[in-house]
């Protein structure tokens, strides 16, 4: 190859490399127009686990047994048979509820139904999709190939593969709206929000829930507030309780684009197991890189053209084989 060809090839390569460094990165996705979600208020949660039971009942899931003799449903974390779990944060002598030191608090773990879902972005076969209106992240086992890229792309490690089943699939909360359950489509709410006796899990539109969360931040600690239960837009009942010292932050308002399932608490979120997320979702960056390189397959086509020309020219002299 002469110098000219070499330079041409190198510049082409350098251009591709530079182009991949962030040129046309897409921004975070925005919330769906009729986004539906939930608000979990850790300070209201008493650890009764009614939501864990309700989730298992609505979704037809078996209890998670700790051993052959232990009959209680004792899930330690999300799994192929647990879509919702209550975990406890403890510190020192855990005597005071919602105290960061020498205290304890409860945290709910389930699918966050992200605004810019990592699982949806990375799935090669559109088995995971974000519903265009409600923003609910759904799963279709008939499309799924079980590659588990969704598990790597989820910042919260939500999707769980059933490794013990040779015909297994991925499992996660689908807001009780999957085929055969369809609670929201039928005008109802999620099982966990319906069962919660204290309104710690509240159902509703993302906008209304975010409003409610921010309202609680504005209240003075000690002030008596009438907490709603059920659907924040049409509460089934209320109960009075003194407002606690909240962390002035609504988790899921902005993290990696935001989530439909938001959390508020009196304990800092990193201690409750929330991942270290900034406002930019990583999948928006990876999609940006992919699109820069492969949009309409333009760049590969051009490169292929160049390569074909080069290879033909180099093999013509020999008329040779491989």
């Amino acid at each position, binding site marked *: 190859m002469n110098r000219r060809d070499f330079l041409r090839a190198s510049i082409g390569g350098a251009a591709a490399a530079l182009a991949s460094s962030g040129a046309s990165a897409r921004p975070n996705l925005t919330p769906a127009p009729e986004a539906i979600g939930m608000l979990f208020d850790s300070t209201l949660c008493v650890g009764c686990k009614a939501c864990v039971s309700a989730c298992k009942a609505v979704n037809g899931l078996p209890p998670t047994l700790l051993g052959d003799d232990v009959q209680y449903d004792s899930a330690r974390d999300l799994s192929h048979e647990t879509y919702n779990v209550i975990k406890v944060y403890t510190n020192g002598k855990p005597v005071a509820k919602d105290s960061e030191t020498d205290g304890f608090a409860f945290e709910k773990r389930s699918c966050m139904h992200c605004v810019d879902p990592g699982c949806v972005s990375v799935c090669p076969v*559109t088995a995971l999709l974000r519903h265009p209106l409600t923003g609910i992240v759904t799963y279709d086992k008939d499309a799924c190939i079980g590659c588990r890229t969704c598990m790597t792309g989820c910042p919260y490690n939500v999707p769980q593969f059933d490794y013990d089943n040779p015909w297994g699939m991925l499992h996660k909360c689908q807001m009780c709206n999957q085929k055969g359950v369809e609670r929201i489509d039928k005008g109802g709410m999620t099982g966990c929000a319906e069962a919660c006796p204290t309104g710690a899990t509240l159902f509703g539109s993302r906008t209304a829930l975010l409003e409610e969360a921010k309202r609680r931040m504005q209240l003075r600690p000690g002030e008596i507030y009438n907490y709603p239960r059920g659907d924040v837009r049409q509460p089934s009942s209320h109960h009075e309780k003194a407002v606690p010292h909240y962390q002035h932050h609504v988790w899921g308002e902005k993290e990696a684009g935001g989530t439909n399932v938001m959390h508020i608490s009196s304990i800092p979120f990193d201690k409750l197991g929330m991942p270290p997320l900034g406002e930019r979702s990583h999948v928006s960056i990876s999609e940006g*890189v992919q699109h820069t390189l492969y949009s309409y397959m333009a760049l590969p086509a051009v490169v292929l053209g160049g390569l074909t020309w080069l290879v033909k020219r180099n093999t013509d002299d020999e008329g040779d084989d491989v």
Partner: protein
Amino acid sequence: MSHYQPLGRRVVTLPFVFLGVIALIGLYFLAERFINGMGAVTNLNGGFPWGIWVVYDIVVGTALACGGYALAVTVYVFNKGKYHPLIRPALLASLLGYGLGGVGAIIDMGRWWQFYNLFLPWQMNFNSVMLEVGLCVSAYIVVLMIEFLPTVLEKFKAEALLKKLNKVLFVVIALGVLLPTMHQSSLGTMLIAMGWKVHPLWQTLHLQPLLAVLTAFTMGFSIVVFEGSLSSVGFRRKPETHLLSGLGRIIVGLIAVYLAIRFGEILVRGKLGLVFAGDLASLMFLIETALFVYPLVVLMSPRGRGNARSLLFAAVSMLLAGTLYRFNAFLITLDPGPGYSYFPALPEIMVTVGLVAIEIMVFLFVVKTFPVMPREDHAAAPNA
């Protein structure tokens, strides 16, 4: 008169049988995987959905199989015809390596019976890096098979077909350069979506595709040196040091570029402190870097390049470097959050080792029965 010949020796040797036993053990556990599920054989869990079947068989395995890619660029893009004799063995190794990657992908797929969804346009998610990897690797395996077809046709003396094939081969070869560039870089891009779980020293974001393809390309040259050296020793042939040393020069250049970009990114993004943090990640980074620097230093001098032994050691070091780079990023320093841990289970390891054993067995068989190895006179002559 062909420049190549089958080695024509006995296929069933002691090493071959030994490999066969290992293969059988692996196949046994593989059967268990399909009967009882992955949980019975692996230690995969909610925080580590990808273990050695993905990271070694697919990510590392295909990088180790970049010999065909590296030589295709050298011989057909940069027109360095003297390396031509190295191509067929490299192609075979590539075909087998990518075959291992393909098999690894299928056995790791949780719902493998629905794999065809990957090829249905209405199911495809064009935002997905994994889609690109899947389609591109599948296409490249076909390309490799076509590129290897002349060897097969030669054995069965299908002259007419061979002639026709040679006329259109240039398109396939061009694809054989484009496709690995695409999917090897995408294997790096997959780390971006893994976000905060990837250790900052390996989370280079926009530079992931570049570093991935650069290391894969370099590993391609290194595997040619490795395979070439071991073949000449194992089959008692003359070493092709004069050819391999040329590749050594290329390796030096590539490693230099790689290290410049790698450390440049670390410095610019202020991550230098992490290199000396004294934890597992910093230790693995230093080992990995050392494995990159060693071949750079050794191969810089003509004496280092001209010596078959130092060539081999340098190549092995580079292969280990690229392997460790991938293992570190995807597995060893990956932190999905507190409470998660992963170390492959014994059956899991045996499946991978078994598949590699099969790969080697097939290599040995093909090389002895098909005209893959260059004739001794063809290869040894330095001015061919």
